[in-house]
């Protein structure tokens, strides 16, 4: 399955939800998905376009645009194309449907994205802190305006 066919199939199936779809190279494509439809798009990618390998889920913070993006990198064990699927979220209430029911291994990626960016994944089976201590939840360290954790640094604890 080649990159052009995938893009055509995706935009044909979701004409409203998919935007800015483009082929970067024969093995890389990218597209924006409507945040309400992201899970449905993922389900279609997995069931119909052989995108059965979720590489990663991550967040990107754009304070100047007052936006955050969730970026899914979805690949396949059968064809060489990797899709970079992105969804735009408002920065003051970033929320998106969890894709754990579609890709099992999205679980930890979403937990990590939540605790580092504050992006809330609705209907996630267990959205608790993974890599940071629980009392740091709410600090969102990977947001661009994060300025450290001054109140509980080692110096202040002594």
């Amino acid at each position, binding site marked *: 399955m080649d990159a052009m066919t995938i893009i055509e199939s995706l935009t044909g199936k979701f004409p409203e939800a998919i935007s800015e779809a483009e082929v970067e190279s024969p*093995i890389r494509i990218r597209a924006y998905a409507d945040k309400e439809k992201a899970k449905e798009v993922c389900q279609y990618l997995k069931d119909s376009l052989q995108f059965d390998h979720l*590489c*990663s889920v991550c967040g990107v913070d754009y304070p100047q645009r007052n936006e955050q993006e969730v970026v899914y*990198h979805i690949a396949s*064990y059968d064809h060489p194309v990797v899709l970079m699927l992105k969804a735009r979220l408002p920065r003051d209430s970033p929320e998106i449907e969890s894709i754990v029911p579609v890709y*099992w*291994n999205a679980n*930890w990626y979403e937990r990590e994205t939540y605790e580092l960016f504050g992006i809330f994944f609705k209907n996630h089976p267990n959205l608790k802190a993974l890599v940071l*201590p629980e009392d740091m939840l709410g600090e969102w360290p990977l947001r661009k305006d*994060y300025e450290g954790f001054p109140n509980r640094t080692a110096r202040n604890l002594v």
Partner: protein
Amino acid sequence: MEEMLEPNEMIVHLGPQHPMQPGPFRLNLRLKGETVMDAEVELGFIHKGIEKILENKTYLQGITIVDRICYLVALTNEECFVGCTEKLLGIEPPERAQYIRVILEELSRLQSHLLGMGEFGEFIGFVSMFMYTIKEREDILTLIDMVTGARVTHSYLKFGGVRDDLPEGFKEKALPVLNNLKKVISDYEEMFNSDRIYRERTVGVGVLTADVAKNLGVSGPPLRATGVPFDIRKNEPYLVYKDLDFKVCTETAGDCFARVQVRLNEMRESIYILEQCLDQIPNGPLFPEGTPYGRRTPVMRVPAGEVFHRVEDPRGEMGMYMISDGSDKPYRVKVRGPYYPTLQALPPLIKGTTVADVAAISGSMDGCTSEADR
């Protein structure tokens, strides 16, 4: 997990420091007798915030930081980070530099697999295995040291090439080491096949099927041990891998024995790749000519854009997603390590097994918690 406890059940915390675990993470097991009823992984004991640090360092400084993601595969991490930057810059290393990178990355794979096998032996009580493999690993590290000047964290790759050429007489020093290793790998194989206790502790233990492994997002030797020939070096060739002859090693059983067997065979393929590289390596420059890139890297601004680049790490698929805003520091780097999904797959895999098998299953994944935690 405590709330689900029945009267005849108990919880055992393995870790964060435990001799059967590769790195600090805590495995909470809910046991009924010797059977594992449920398991949960706790991470975060060595979280280093690498992704945040990379946003505050220049691209060149970033190379030394990605080394620290997992010291066993520092060179593959560098390849991924430098590869991302090169794609954004639109440059490609000349052929000699690509060959040198392949040589070092395959040596790195050999030493990582050797240590992985040795640790696995130790986890299941086969301690002498660790002594054998660590001895051979030293020879490989010495070869890497000859080229990069460091044994663990190398900072050797640079944008568009490599920092230094191979030293005089490298081939003459490398070939005897590789020939010896070939013989030693056969010895290991014979040892594994003839040892009844080893076989009983690994054959049929921790079986992953291809469908389950794919669903769990597993890659690398644990996936190839289920019969799926997924290898980035073949599926998405980078450097000069497309010109080299090697095969993707697979097994079908999907158990602990198969995972170790895949690594043994991969070491044979790595040696074959190294022999080809040492024979074929052309003369030529180490950096693309007519560009400012060279040993003395200029203060570098990278054109705005985004890229996802992946390479085959000894543990599987290592990918990085890099966004540049046109400044001298990356705007965002997401590190997608291979052990992260494999570690996530551990609880469903050990559920239903006995507590003694937990060490065998966990060890056969050849983990690096440092990489999962970043």
